[in-house]
């Protein structure tokens, strides 16, 4: 009887230890994926839209907070459309709309990935983007505008 009890006790301890390790591993993997997604998404978006005067940074008031919005413009059938990347309501969001349509609420954009903060600065042909992830870690990346055109602030 004692042997069985001991076996059960130790097995439970081992399962608890294993599930804790599993939780920690999957959490790390998920955080890695989120970080890679947010950074890679923004960098590739800028590269895709890299044209003279097409990339600019704006500050827009959303839900009472000034928010950095990375705006990427393109011309379709003679009309100017914009892809706007910004962080609101704990997520990196993207809005694709006509250039005349203002960004008014956080829910105007499609949720891309969870993100705490998103700061963008443009200096000449170099864009500096700082991501603050939900776990508090930050990543700062630079994106070079290869079009020869300068970004606008």
């Amino acid at each position: 009887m004692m042997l069985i009890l001991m076996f059960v006790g130790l097995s439970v301890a081992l399962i608890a230890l294993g599930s804790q390790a599993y939780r920690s591993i999957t959490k790390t993997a998920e955080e890695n994926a989120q970080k890679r997604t947010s950074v890679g998404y923004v960098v590739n978006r800028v590269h895709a839209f890299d044209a003279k005067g097409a990339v600019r940074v704006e500050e827009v008031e959303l839900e009472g907070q000034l928010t950095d919005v990375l705006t990427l413009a393109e011309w379709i059938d003679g009309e100017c459309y914009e892809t706007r990347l910004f962080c609101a309501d704990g997520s990196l969001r993207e809005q694709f709309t006509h250039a005349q349509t203002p960004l008014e609420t956080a829910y105007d954009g499609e949720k891309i990935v969870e993100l705490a903060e998103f700061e963008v600065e443009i200096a000449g042909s170099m864009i500096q983007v700082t991501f603050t992830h939900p776990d508090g870690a930050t990543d700062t990346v630079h994106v070079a505008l290869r079009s020869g055109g300068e970004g606008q602030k």
Partner: protein
Amino acid sequence: MKQRFSSHTTLIELAAALLCFLLASVTVLGLFSKAYTISRNGRLLNRATIFAQDCAEVVAGAADLEEALQQLGYEPVEDGVWRYRPDAELMVLLRLNTEQTEVGSLVSGKISVMREEEVLLEMETARYNNKEVIHS
């Protein structure tokens, strides 16, 4: 005699069960330790990729490369070699090579992100110093 034999048998069974359990525990913990190492390496590789990409973008697009690298915390190690140590975990090593081509001065760079002596990731990048030539 029979009681002593029975007592010995129980003791042997107990020892065997404990040994089996210990072996199983060591195997399971070993597997989790391996999984943890893989997860940690994934995190390091993730960070290494971000640092290498960032360095490549700076080399490709900074107006004044040396000034930009210094502002980011890179320090010159020797001629054409720059080092950046964001924290105790990782180190970025950038080796630049300048050559004259038909379209101007081409600066190519090899980026290595290392953890101690181990190279986690290597990447190549390039910039033309005379951009007017390229865009004309």
